[in-house]
């Protein structure tokens, strides 16, 4: 369970503060695989980043005792001048992985980048970077994975593999996902949170949430 207490979040801009959330109180229930639905600019990514502790609300707090992943987006935390192996090692070190060598080997196996794994990331093609990012996160055991549209990149083979491993994971852990592809969401999630005008609504049934979202 993740508790949002009195969360206010805004971004300063030339037109004054742009409020995303105002005094939001909400409980994200545990034990669900949740899809976050919302139109562009509704604050999905902001919510995500606040849950992950990458950003902090201007007021209020977010309380949880769960082990959340970082927001796994296209290339979070990956340095273009370091090799894939070095990046994986860095991420492992920061997250406190006990056996780094084993972890790097596992990422190497999963990402399937071949010899490119030992070359700097700036030599990678645009589809390969998200593969590395995804492999790094799936290699660590979290209670909740925050996945931001990563499963929809890469070639068909990798997508299949990512799907399988994420489905495997969702037995012992949960996912919170942002995606605009409903098929993707239907595959992983069982419930939904609709984000509209700074308000969150939880739907126990994913289809119900999707119907509401599409009616907005």
């Amino acid at each position, binding site marked *: 369970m993740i508790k949002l207490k009195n969360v206010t979040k805004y*971004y*300063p801009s030339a037109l004054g503060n742009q409020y995303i959330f105002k005094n939001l109180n909400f409980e994200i229930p545990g034990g669900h695989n949740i899809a976050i639905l919302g139109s562009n600019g509704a604050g999905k990514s902001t919510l995500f*980043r606040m849950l*992950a*502790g*990458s*950003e*902090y*609300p*201007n007021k209020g707090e977010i309380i949880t005792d769960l*082990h*959340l992943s*970082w*927001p796994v987006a296209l290339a*979070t*935390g990956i*340095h273009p*001048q*370091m090799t894939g192996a*070095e990046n994986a090692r*860095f*991420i492992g*070190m*920061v*997250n*406190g*992985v*006990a*056996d780094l060598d*084993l*972890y790097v080997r*596992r990422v190497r196996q999963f990402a399937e980048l071949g010899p490119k794994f030992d070359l700097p990331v700036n030599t990678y093609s645009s589809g390969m970077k998200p593969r590395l990012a995804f492999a790094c996160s799936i*290699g*660590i*055991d979290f209670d909740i994975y925050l996945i931001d549209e990563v499963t929809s990149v890469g070639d068909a083979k990798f997508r299949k593999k990512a799907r399988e491993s994420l489905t495997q994971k969702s037995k012992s852990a949960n996912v919170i996902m942002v995606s605009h592809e409903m098929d993707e969401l239907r595959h992983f999630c069982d419930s939904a949170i609709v984000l509209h005008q700074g308000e969150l609504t939880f739907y126990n049934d994913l289809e119900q949430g999707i119907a509401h979202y599409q009616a907005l």
Partner: protein
Amino acid sequence: MTTVLKRNNWAIWRDVIFALFVREIRTSFNDRLGLAWAVLQPLSFIFMLSYMRGRMDGGDTHTIPTFEFMMYGMLLVQLFLETLTSCSGAIKKNKALFAFRQVQPISSVLAAALFNLLIKLAVFILIFVIMYFLKMDFKLDDPLFVIINILTLWIFAVSLALMFAIAQCYIPEISKIQSVLSRPMFFISAVFFSMQDVPKEYWPYLDWNPILHAIELTRHAAYGTYSAEAVSELFLFSSALVALFFSICIYHISWKQAISR
């Protein structure tokens, strides 16, 4: 599957700073010259400047060999300037890494700070080794005091840099102002002159500068005969302490908002 350690806060800090430190080493020296450049660049400068001044005063500057006179000035001012630039840019540079909740802005500043200190210490030691093999005579009357001066100047630089780094998150233009402000530091910090060259009535115009104090005091510590009349350790230590205090205060109240913008 992968075991994740439950670490206490200190262990997290240690691991993160170490990881950032390794990353810094890995990405800073990416060209062919690599680490050698960190040594060659100040060394060539020192040789050039000490040669020029040595021609004028016959190899001895106020009882210190001119080479060492320049060496302390050069290395200390570079320690200050480079630490200031790289630490104050550290928060912005590593912004993407704050996606990991374990990585806090101060860790990236500290990693950059440690990295700069180690490089300069390595350069110091290397230059001493070179001097030994060239059979140049050198003295270290009070090595402890030399070390304390270097560390104090380093703390002062890191504290200033932390304040600049936070300010940059709010007002990006600060980085330009900072580079304008730090440029003259090279020329007014007694790098290639001594306070003894300056008439007493002009001392107040230069005396406010803690870097100058650090440089003159270090020369005095290495050669007891070199007069450090114009400078005081109390001023150096207290400016470092005050800067450290304020920078930590500012950091403490503003770091969460600084990375959330």
